[in-house]
């Protein structure tokens, strides 16, 4: 199992870098070319969500992305350090109600895109942060001709 780890300050301009790196590693691992667009989009959505959570929560820690090459699959884990409140709980009051609603809407739209794109996805959240794990099947690279 080979892993590439990427950590970046929670700034929107770095999300593109994460997309490019993830797509490069995915291609190397044998993810089908036709699926690379989906990988790029899904990892971008996950990172955008994490950046938003860190920024709105005033969290200075970086966003963490793990790109994991396994035998028959390629996985991406995007972790944030934002404490997640259980559904139904009132989140901490910051910004106006409209702003908070807009943020929630965008957050949900990001997750909607991820779940629409990726068959194998797992979203977990706890007091210490959240994690989105996504996997794609890989085909082993063709053996080189002698």
């Amino acid at each position, binding site marked *: 199992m080979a892993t590439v780890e990427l950590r970046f300050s929670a700034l*929107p301009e770095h999300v593109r870098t994460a*997309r490019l790196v993830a797509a490069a590693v995915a291609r190397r691992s044998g993810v089908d070319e036709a699926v690379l667009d989906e990988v790029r989009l899904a990892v971008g*959505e996950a990172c955008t969500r994490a950046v938003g959570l860190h920024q709105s929560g005033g969290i200075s820690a970086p966003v963490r992305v793990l790109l994991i090459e396994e035998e028959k699959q390629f996985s991406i884990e995007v972790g944030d350090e934002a404490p997640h409140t259980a559904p139904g709980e009132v989140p901490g009051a910051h910004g106006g109600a409209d702003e908070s609603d807009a943020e929630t809407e965008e957050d949900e739209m990001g997750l909607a*895109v991820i779940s629409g794109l990726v068959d194998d996805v797992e979203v977990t959240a706890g007091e210490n942060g959240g994690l989105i794990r996504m996997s794609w099947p890989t085909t082993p690279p063709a053996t080189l001709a002698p």
Partner: protein
Amino acid sequence: MDLSLSTRTVGDRTVVEVGGEIDVYTAPKLREQLVELVNDGSFHLVVDMEGVDFLDSTGLGVLVGGLKRVRAHEGSLRLVCNQERILKIFRITGLTKVFPIHTSVEEAVAATD
């Protein structure tokens, strides 16, 4: 690649030609452009997405925001897009039901509800 924006007027429509990547970093520029157009009285917008290489949910959010604004003035927001990978994002989020999507600027400009 960054985001490129240019606008032109065709009859009573304003065509916004978008190029490059619309993501969490660049989407605010598109939002500003749409807000400015509506504030200046352009309520019938055609957003030409043919030059867009990448679109994420932040970009979708901006387009939905633009639609809300023009509708407040009984206006319209039409999209021009033929790229399958971009259309797919509208489909999986159900937004193909929200936006009229056309295959050419000419068709979008001529369209009426």
